[in-house]
């Protein structure tokens, strides 16, 4: 299997607080990798390093390497703007831009210089279909995205990310605020998408991790405790902490 993201001895601190402690993990191409762990264990922080959104935080100190296709993205020479075309992100809370459904999804492609109406339309349609949202919104693409339901908004955000044509999709607890039906739709979409993309899914819902990921990583207090195929992690965990967490005995 090909390594897509290689995190090598990543250490990160906010001021004096060390949040990530020597994390080494490989994420493989065309898989869904689940990150789980109790609140505050540093999952979101890792995500924000991979997409360099960490740049917007103050007082951050980072050591180690994060490579995508072998190139260290923490290097000075790596432009975060270019990186974010390859690494799309879906956040926990869906935040549509205050514009139409169509324009939300066309936002990324337009930034990449695509302006032809037909081409944009093709991208919007394709992305919405992949996010399992097309049928619900195809007749009202020009209405405000803020009018969609929470579940629809989250799929809109997924479609918006897909429209970037990224190689990697990072999802940080994308279903935490959603009902079971919306959650199922997102999971279906992700399952379809992994053949084209490399997906990292952060979730506090161990059942969800078990359901749809190929690999699972368990983090605790900024340390990677266990990382293996999802099967192994859930059937024969090596660490006591992992087992406790999976069985819900934690915290």
């Amino acid at each position, binding site marked *: 299997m090909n390594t897509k993201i290689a995190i090598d001895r990543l250490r990160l601190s906010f001021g004096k607080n060390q949040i990530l402690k020597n994390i080494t993990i490989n994420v493989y191409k065309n898989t869904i990798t689940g990150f789980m762990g109790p609140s505050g264990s540093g999952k979101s922080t890792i995500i924000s390093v991979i997409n360099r959104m960490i740049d917007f935080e103050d007082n951050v100190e980072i050591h180690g390497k994060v490579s995508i296709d072998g190139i260290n993205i923490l290097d000075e020479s790596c*432009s975060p703007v*270019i990186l974010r075309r390859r690494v799309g992100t879906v956040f926990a809370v869906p935040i549509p831009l205050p514009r139409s459904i169509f324009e939300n999804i066309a936002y990324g492609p337009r930034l*990449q210089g695509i302006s032809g109406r037909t081409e944009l339309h093709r991208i919007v349609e394709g992305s919405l279909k992949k996010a399992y949202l097309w049928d619900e919104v195809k007749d009202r693409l020009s209405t405000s995205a803020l009018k969609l339901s929470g579940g629809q908004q989250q799929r809109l955000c997924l479609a918006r990310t897909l429209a970037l044509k990224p190689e990697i999709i990072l999802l940080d607890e994308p279903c935490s605020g959603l009902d079971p039906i919306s959650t199922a739709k997102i999971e279906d979409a992700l399952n379809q998408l992994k053949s084209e993309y490399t997906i990292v899914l952060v979730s506090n819902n161990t059942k969800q991790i078990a359901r749809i990921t190929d690999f699972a990583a368990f983090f605790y207090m900024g340390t990677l405790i266990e990382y293996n195929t999802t099967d192994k992690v859930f059937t024969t965990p090596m660490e006591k902490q992992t087992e406790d967490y999976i069985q819900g005995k934690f915290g």
Partner: protein
Amino acid sequence: MIEKALLKERFVKWVLIAFALSSLLFLFLIFIFILAEGLPLFLKVGVGNIIGGFKWAPTRGSFGIFPMIVSSFLVTIGALAIGAPMGLSCAIYLSEYSGKKTQMLLKPALELLAGIPSVVYGFLGVIYIVPLVRNYLGGSGFSLLSTSIILGVMILPTIISISFDALISVPKTYREGSFAMGATKWQTIYKVILPSAKSGILASFILGMGRAIGETMAVIMIAGNALKIPGSILDPLRTLTGNIALELSYASGDHRLGLFSTGVVLMVIIMILNYIANFGIKRKIAK
């Protein structure tokens, strides 16, 4: 494409820095040019003869503006005497007594007072206040009193708006605590709310003073512009601002420099007032 965007990014940043610096540049230019015109006369005639001098006869070498400095302060104090109690009580009414609806309607309406041009205030002063003062109190009506009344009304929006903000930002728990101890509304306002909003209210007064002392067009229409220190509130007077506005369009030579010297004095007074007001506001925020 992406290179273009990144290049633009850097270009934009430099343009924005230049824009931001423009404010400083303008301030600098204003300072330099008013000082450059205003200072030479101080050296030539002497600081004491200008600031302490009683006689303003610029075409005959006398540049005393002491009466104008005094007059500027007198109208400012007069304006405050009228505007401060009115404005503060209005702010108290809005923050403590009126309902939310009244507040939403009245506050912007009162702030609209600030939009009425000063020439209109001056005009109304001449038509309505000056005759009133003349007929009931005597004198020509063009007086310290009339000017103070008009300026008092003119600084109302400043005082109301800033005091209101100070009052409304007193935490709710203060009020509740006081009510819980059995205090009446007025006792709460008087003993708890006003003291905690003190520095903001003070800042509103000082900014109001700044507005009054800098006011020009209304003042020259109502003040009478006499060149001496007024002996009573019914006497006419000329302020620093009035002196500049009355003579700038035809002054030349040393006369014009004298007007810039007047401007320098005005600028220094305004700077001190602003400094005090900002200091007060900062302390409020720090608390």
